[in-house]
């Protein structure tokens, strides 16, 4: 080995091996102190290196493929760390390279280069960590603001339906059922949030219906019914004409939530998919909530009866496909129904929005 060669190896703190037969390596440069330590001061000159460095056991296969491939550039193993005589950490790296038809393996003590790499990655990762923290904090606050907005909306909505018997909890449930459907349909987060609020406002137009009709016990006359029907358009007008997406959606729902799949609904007699999907969803969940609860004009029906009644509406007033989905989600709907009630003590513990978290697409076969 000439002087220059030796100086180069020295300054890079590298040892050179030539591949021998049967997985052994012949040392080709002067062994360094650290190498001798790891080789247990064995100075035979030919070594089964994977026995001394378990890490190489993984690299050698890749190296073999590399030597066979005939590529000229070196393949590096990535650094690994060994503890030296004094327990200090030593970072090593292996490189496989083909020179003059020979399979060459270099072992390098990375030294300072490694410490610099650690420093660099350390600060990059610390940066990532604090960025992640900030993003989480922002997401948390946004969620908080969103929930406050929702609570205000729900309070206002339940105020407008104060005259009939609809309650704050009913309004909340309608929003949650609808959001559950939207989630199962794979909508994006924003649209799910929107329908959760927009659905609650479907009956807001009832504010414009006189007491004597809205609160009338017994059957409405044809004339009265015509007036009652106007709550859809009144609601749509109240909510329309903004450039706020959630209000636009609410306006559409208010207008179309009495349309029927078979085209026999009002105000426009739209049919099937002419009816906006948001309204078709609200139609289903509003029916469900009305049937399952007690009303002045009816007692509460059992789950079985409700399911049966709703099945009869499939393809008539309700969208059959969406209704199918609704039935698949029934366990979730039942939980919303039983956990979101007007009894304050009942819904103090669980955040009803967490119920939505439990809907997974995988649950819907």
């Amino acid at each position, binding site marked *: 080995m000439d002087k220059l060669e030796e100086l180069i190896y020295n300054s890079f703190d590298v040892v050179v091996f030539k591949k021998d037969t049967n997985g052994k390596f012949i040392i080709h440069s002067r062994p360094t102190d650290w190498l001798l330590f790891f080789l247990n001061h064995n100075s035979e000159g030919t070594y089964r290196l994977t026995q001394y460095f378990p890490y190489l056991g*993984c690299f050698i296969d890749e190296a073999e493929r590399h030597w066979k491939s005939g590529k000229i550039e070196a393949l590096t193993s990535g650094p690994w760390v060994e503890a030296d005589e004094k327990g200090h950490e030593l970072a090593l790296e292996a490189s496989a390279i083909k020179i003059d038809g020979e399979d060459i393996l270099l072992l390098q003590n990375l030294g300072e280069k490694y410490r610099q790499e650690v420093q660099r*990655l350390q600060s990059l990762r610390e940066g990532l960590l604090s960025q992640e923290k900030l993003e989480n904090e922002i997401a948390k606050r946004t969620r908080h603001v969103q929930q406050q907005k929702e609570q205000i909306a729900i309070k206002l909505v339940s105020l407008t339906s104060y005259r009939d018997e609809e309650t704050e909890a009913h309004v909340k449930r309608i929003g949650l059922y609808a959001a559950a459907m939207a989630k199962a349909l794979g909508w994006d987060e924003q649209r799910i949030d929107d329908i959760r609020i927009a659905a609650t406002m479907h009956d807001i137009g009832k504010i414009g219906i006189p007491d004597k009709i809205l609160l009338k016990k017994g059957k409405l006359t044809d004339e009265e019914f015509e007036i009652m029907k106007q709550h859809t358009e009144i609601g749509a007008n109240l909510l329309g004409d903004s450039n706020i997406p959630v209000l636009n959606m609410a306006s559409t729902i208010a207008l179309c939530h009495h349309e029927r799949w078979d085209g026999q609904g009002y105000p426009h007699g739209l049919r099937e998919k002419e009816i906006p999907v948001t309204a078709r969803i609200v139609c289903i969940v509003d029916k469900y909530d009305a049937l399952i609860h007690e009303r002045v004009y009816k007692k509460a029906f059992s789950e079985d009866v409700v399911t049966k009644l709703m099945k009869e509406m499939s393809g008539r007033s309700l969208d059959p496909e969406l209704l199918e989905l609704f039935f698949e989600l029934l366990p979730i709907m039942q939980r919303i129904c039983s956990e979101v009630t007007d009894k304050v003590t009942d819904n103090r513990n669980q955040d009803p929005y*967490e119920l939505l978290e*439990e809907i997974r697409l995988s649950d819907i076969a």
Partner: protein
Amino acid sequence: MIQKKICLLGSFAVGKTSLIQQHINSLFSDKYLTTVGVKIDKAVFEIDGKQLSLMIWDIAGEDDFTNIRPAYLRGLDGYIIVIDGSRNSTVHKALSIHQKVVESCGEIPVVFAINKADIKHEWEVTEEQFSQLKRTDYPVFETSAKSGQSVDSIFSNLGGQLLQHHG
């Protein structure tokens, strides 16, 4: 003596190195020194009268700058997936890494560790994610490399599985 190779896997800074240090040397440091590359430690267990020597591979966590080299996984007998309870993103990462390992190594013994249980008030992992993990039927432990909680359990549980696997 039976020899096995295991790996700790997960996002960066979830506490992989700390768990190994706590298990082997009963030490914990608050000072974060990131792992670059691979470090291999050895631990010897006795389970049901059988001696088991574990080669524990500590490798850099996955992040924007490093990926797990498939070669690291060669000859892997089992692994511990570590999640940082205070960082939601590490759950997703854990599941995707798990997926990757199953694809390249098949179903081999695994233990999930939700780490940093000493700061549970700062946990972001939701009950829902938690129960989703538990439903997978893999053993899940809440650990703390700081207090030592369940640290030895994750290794001995995995060790037990390895011996069973070994027949």
